[in-house]
């Protein structure tokens, strides 16, 4: 598999899509951080670096999806996956080498985001939340990136054909949509306190239980669902609100393992053309 990995990295270094994604993440992270910090300074707001530092966590999955879709699709459309199997590499080696390549590229995107965000340090100073908090959020970001890489490698290698490229990218939007829906459900307040207008002015009503608030086992289930969807974790990292880091990491591990093992099993039986 080392040979396949070396060959994939050789190709990745020459891949325009990889550099386009890397450059976009780096530029976006740098430019956005610069403007956010500059605006806050101009308006006299007290800004902390961490307020904006994790904003790029959310779109990160899109870059992984785009890279994986294009990189893996070329293997089928240009028929090069055949030359790997024909010379005696096993399907397992081919699948794992591709997963590790997509993961490596994605980690480069994470690095581009983290490096680009550092442009804010000379403007507003370093993180005030402490190194451990930053490191924990970066760790969760790395892990949900691995989960994204596993999902997109699965889709890219199991679904061959041109439609696979679109499906991989759409999958990211679907995950994001799913996570947003769950986030909305979970963000419903437990009590709703309305305001009524009377002749005496505005009056606050007594808080009443919110019928849309989910509690108990259902809430735990939704929280678990939010953690198991990598885009849900990306939302938590973006707002620096990772409620249960251990559960998040275990979920990432589980998603990565399930998609990789499932992908290996299906790829082993797939008829290639």
């Amino acid at each position: 598999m080392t040979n396949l990995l070396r060959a994939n990295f050789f190709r990745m270094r020459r891949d325009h899509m990889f550099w386009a994604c890397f450059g976009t993440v780096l530029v976006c992270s740098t430019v956005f951080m610069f403007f956010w910090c500059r605006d806050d300074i101009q308006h006299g707001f007290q800004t902390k670096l961490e307020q904006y530092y994790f904003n790029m966590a959310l779109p990160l999955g899109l870059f992984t999806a785009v890279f994986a879709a294009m990189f893996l699709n070329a293997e089928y459309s240009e028929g090069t996956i055949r030359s790997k199997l024909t010379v005696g590499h096993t399907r397992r080696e081919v699948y794992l080498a591709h997963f590790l390549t997509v993961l490596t590229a994605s980690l480069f995107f994470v690095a581009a985001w983290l490096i680009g965000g550092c442009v804010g340090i000379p403007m507003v100073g370093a993180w005030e939340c402490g190194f451990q908090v930053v490191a924990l959020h970066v760790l969760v970001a790395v892990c949900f990136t691995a989960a994204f890489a596993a999902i997109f490698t699965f889709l890219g290698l199991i679904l061959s054909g041109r439609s696979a490229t679109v499906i991989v990218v759409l999958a990211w939007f679907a995950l994001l949509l799913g996570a947003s829906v769950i986030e909305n459900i979970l963000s419903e307040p437990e009590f709703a306190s309305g305001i009524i207008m009377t002749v005496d002015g505005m009056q606050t009503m007594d808080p009443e239980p919110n019928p849309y608030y989910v509690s108990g086992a259902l809430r735990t289930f939704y929280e678990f669902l939010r953690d198991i969807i990598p885009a849900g974790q990306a939302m938590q990292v973006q707002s620096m609100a990772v409620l249960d880091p251990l559960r998040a990491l275990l979920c990432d591990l589980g998603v990565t393992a399930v998609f990789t093992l499932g992908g290996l099993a299906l790829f082993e039986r797939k008829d290639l053309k």
Partner: protein
Amino acid sequence: MDYILQTNNLIKHYKNGKALNGLTMHVEKGAIYGFVGRNGAGKTTLIRLICGLQEPTEGTFTLYGCPNDSREITRSRRRMGAVVETPSIYLSMTAEENLKQQYQILGLPSYDGLRDLLELVRLGNTGKKKAKDFSLGMRQRLGIAVALAGDPDFLILDEPANGLDPQGIVEIRELILRLNRDRQITVLISSHILDELSRLATHYGFIDNGRMVKEISAPELEANCRKCLRLTVSDARPLTAALDKMGLEYSIHSDTEADVYDAPSVTELTLALHNAGCEVKNIHEHDESLESYYMNLVGGAVDD
């Protein structure tokens, strides 16, 4: 007999039916094996199975004596190169980069021999030109170079002349002949361009509806496709008497039609038949080509 590839009763089912229906074939070491069949006969399916792109539904094959269900088959495949359907090349890379990529896939310790390989397929001067800007023939030759990167002694080419112009076809033919002659590479070529195949192949396998109809060597085929004079006469009886008298080899097809072998003098023949009281209504040279041999073998029109 030393065989590189043997298949035994191979069957491959797809959702829409059987692509291979008990195919048995034998590819001798050192041969250029022409694999002939109409579109959809199962040629590419067989190649996919041999290359490990698909698994047979039933039946077995051996590659260098190694059974397909053995773990060692991957080791046997390292001695093989293949161009299946379209050349497996990265269009965004140059010819040299494509070969470097393949060298890395194979785990070769250095790029020694890379330039020679490019020269062999006449792509030594392509420089920084990307494969996407190559002609079809150049891509096909690059595909063959990629397949040759591991120095294989068995090369599988699936329709290598497809879409090529006459110049490209000649280049590919010369390349295949050079590889077989100079490097002793056994070649399996699938094609339905029979005229082209007849200039290359030392052995033929004719496939139809997923089954091997006939395997035959080129000399045997030549013997079966002998030149003859096809005569249409008024009566075959005086004809046979005259031919026997002349000591010629012949075959009678009907009361009025016969083939005469051994290239007799047409003047002598017609005079002898005239003297025997046999009227010659039609006479023409008949040369059974590979195409007509194949058509006779499989029966019916080729629906290419």
